[in-house]
């Protein structure tokens, strides 16, 4: 098949404005769609960030005393004993926060005492006995806290000189502080200038609020500090399929122990995750919808203009057909013409896509648009153009030569 580009160029030159508009439209669509698809990917990736917790089996119970508890530590221990005794509960513990929860405690942590500024910002998990089993987190190295290492936050508050026997840190934080070596036994400075030993490294432990474009890596630290239930949440790990029953039983047991409390609805961490990323999901859908409508509008524009051209050039088509051109050649003429215009538009669109991406990088701290998006976007738009022009082109090819010449 020979490509007769000459006549196409000649015709297009006579319709510079219309051709230019198609090029412009395809280019703009290409630029917007490439960036929108990239943004969707970015959101979806953030939504998948692992927390390290056994999210499907978790139950997060948040409650507040109506009157001030005289001894919140004792009440917390009583509640935990009750919860651990419930059927279907594997383990229960009290934590100051859970991933995607309502409260978020983050702080600086340094490698050395004389750091002018904290070397990293990490999520601080204050965890009481049983936290490892109830969270489902996995140790990569080192050990869990020993029972005697836990201290109550209320008691710690009364002693300015008290120290913490050690911390566990997330793998990413360990790699950040001690690249290429083991973090075990090394000292870190979680706030203030007192060193604390790293007792263990957790395989994956996410931030409380991940997915912020500004947030650093998954840096997290766990301290053996027991908070009262009024300042934290109960985290339960239910046996598979038992979650609903566990929530009901836990609520009843806690109310029976002390009626004067206000409950927040109990949720699993997976549900908290859903809630945390609602806005991102909504945005991803919006972007997808805009892409779809943009494609439809672009296709309709191409169809409209191609239809017009076919009608306008019916005399030329008839002449060519009468001179022996086959239907296939007429069809290919229009498809080739569209291919040319689309390619031009896409080339323009790529440049615009990069410009838009640059603006996004500056304003939204987004990463650079991966090159892989461009050929995919290009192919999609080329295919769209070919599909859109197919109808008008077939109509052109079907024109009977004699009738056209006569008309």
């Amino acid at each position: 098949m020979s490509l007769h580009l000459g006549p196409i160029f000649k015709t297009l030159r006579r319709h510079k404005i219309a051709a230019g508009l198609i090029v412009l439209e395809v280019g703009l669509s290409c630029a917007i769609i490439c960036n929108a698809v990239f943004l969707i990917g970015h959101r979806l990736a953030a939504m998948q960030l692992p927390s390290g917790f056994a999210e499907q089996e978790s139950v997060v119970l948040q409650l507040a005393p109506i009157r001030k508890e005289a001894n919140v530590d004792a009440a917390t221990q009583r509640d935990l004993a009750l919860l651990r005794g419930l059927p279907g509960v594997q383990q229960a513990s009290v934590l100051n926060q859970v991933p995607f929860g309502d409260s978020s405690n983050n702080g600086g942590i340094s490698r050395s005492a004389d750091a002018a500024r904290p070397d990293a910002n990490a999520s601080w998990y204050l965890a009481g006995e049983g936290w490892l089993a109830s969270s489902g987190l996995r140790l990569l190295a080192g050990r869990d806290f020993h029972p005697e290492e836990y201290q109550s936050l209320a008691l710690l508050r009364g002693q300015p000189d008290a120290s913490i026997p050690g911390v566990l840190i997330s793998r990413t934080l360990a790699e950040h502080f001690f690249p290429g070596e083991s973090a075990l036994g090394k000292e870190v400075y979680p706030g203030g200038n007192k060193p604390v030993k790293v007792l263990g490294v957790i395989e994956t432990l996410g931030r409380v609020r991940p997915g912020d474009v500004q947030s650093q890596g998954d840096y997290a630290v766990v301290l053996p500090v027991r908070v009262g239930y009024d300042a934290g949440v109960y985290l339960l790990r239910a046996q598979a399929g038992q979650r609903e029953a566990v929530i009901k039983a836990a609520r009843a047991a806690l109310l029976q122990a002390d009626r004067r409390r206000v409950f927040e609805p109990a949720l699993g961490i997976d549900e908290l995750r859903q809630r945390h990323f609602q806005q991102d999901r909504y945005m991803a859908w919006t972007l997808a919808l805009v892409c779809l409508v943009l494609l439809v509008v672009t296709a309709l524009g191409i169809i409209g203009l191609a239809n017009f051209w076919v009608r306008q050039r019916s005399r030329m088509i008839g002449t060519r057909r009468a001179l022996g051109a086959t239907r296939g050649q007429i069809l290919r003429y229009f498809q080739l013409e569209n291919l040319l215009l689309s390619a031009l538009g896409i080339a323009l669109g790529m440049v615009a896509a990069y410009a838009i991406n640059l603006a996004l990088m500056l304003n939204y701290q987004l990463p650079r648009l991966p090159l892989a998006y461009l050929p995919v976007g290009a192919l999609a738009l080329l295919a769209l153009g070919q599909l859109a022009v197919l109808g008008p082109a077939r109509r052109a090819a079907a024109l009977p030569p004699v009738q056209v010449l006569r008309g």
Partner: protein
Amino acid sequence: MFAYYLDLALRSCRANPVLTGLMVLALGLGIGASMTTLTVYHVLSADPLPGRSDRLHLVQLDAGQLQGWRAGEEPDEQLTRLDAQNLLAEARAPRQALMSGGTAIVQDQAEQAEARSVSARYASADFFAMMGAPLRFGSGWSAADDAAHARVVVISHELNERLFGGADSSGRSLRVQDTEMRIIGVLAPWRLTPHFYDLNMGSYARVEELFVPFATAMEIGLNRAGSMNCWGNERVNDPLAAGANCAWMQYWVELPDAQARQDYRAYLVAYAERQRQAGRFERPPNERLRSVRAWLVHKQVVPGDVRLQLWLALGFLLVCLTNTVGLLLAKCLRGTPQIGVRRALGASRKAIFAQHLVEALVIGGAGGLLGLLLAWIGLLGVRMNPASYAELARLDGPMLAACIAVSLLASVAAGLLPAWRAAQVAPALQLKSQ
């Protein structure tokens, strides 16, 4: 003449229903999407206190430690309790208020209603006057109540509905955690957009349900909520203590004019200098005094997603406009023979131009109407969005006017080029080719 052009335009539209439909649809989609996002943007970047916002200013002081200090750095957004109390005691502005967010569990006195946790604001007396809080019953508290740590509260319209069925509850009692408090005021329905005086609670958070004098709230140990920043090498055991190196309070002053602002700024520098001499502040004075508007701009209060959607929609409108220009052009050119005849019969270029512009306006008007409908549907969609600001997204008078203006402007923009091309058609040549 216009009626004739209108007739011609309608006739031309009827002659090409598919092409016309495509143009109207594309324009409608573009206008609908951009008006939806523009409305959301307009609502979210609203002035929370029209006519008064330029008088309220947020005070920032730099009480941080010298270690790790970088010159010119933005000071903390909030004040320490001690600084806030000092400034309040010295009262150098016509009005000033210190405040913090919190949560408290409330119940009616008879403990009939279910105890529930509500959002609270702990503030000093000027708060209500400064923020223009509308009171339905009773009043706010006085500076004397602040000083006496009075057990008084002001409650929101919603809380009054829930606990007292909307009756005038001023003078009645309320149980706040462990303490019996007297209700002295009930607010009328009130929503500040944005929730500018404490953005930590969420930029578009609802106004709090319970208002308590700050000193009282601290004395009876109500829970604090919001952001807090502590510094120093000493472990802070009680961050809420007055002397703690923790910033967690918002401090607003009302300054009527530029002179007052200048004076207050000088006063803040002098205050910081005094604190430094006393050994409390380590850094050189680094104060900020931002008006409500400047504060909202500084905090980029309009969510990034909303700005992104606005740009996306404007890009989309551009594509739709390009599309419409292309199709209008095609339609015009198809009508070339008729234009030639009209020109040969004596129509001026101006007349041809006007005729085609009217046609573009007709299509633009239809597109605008469709756009309006789509924007209305779009805003319904936005209100189903999980974000806190969703319910605010409504079309108001100015936006409706803007919508009509945008669609007319868009259609004129789309119609100019094709109309100009049509006016270029030479009469003789066309007649010859017939």
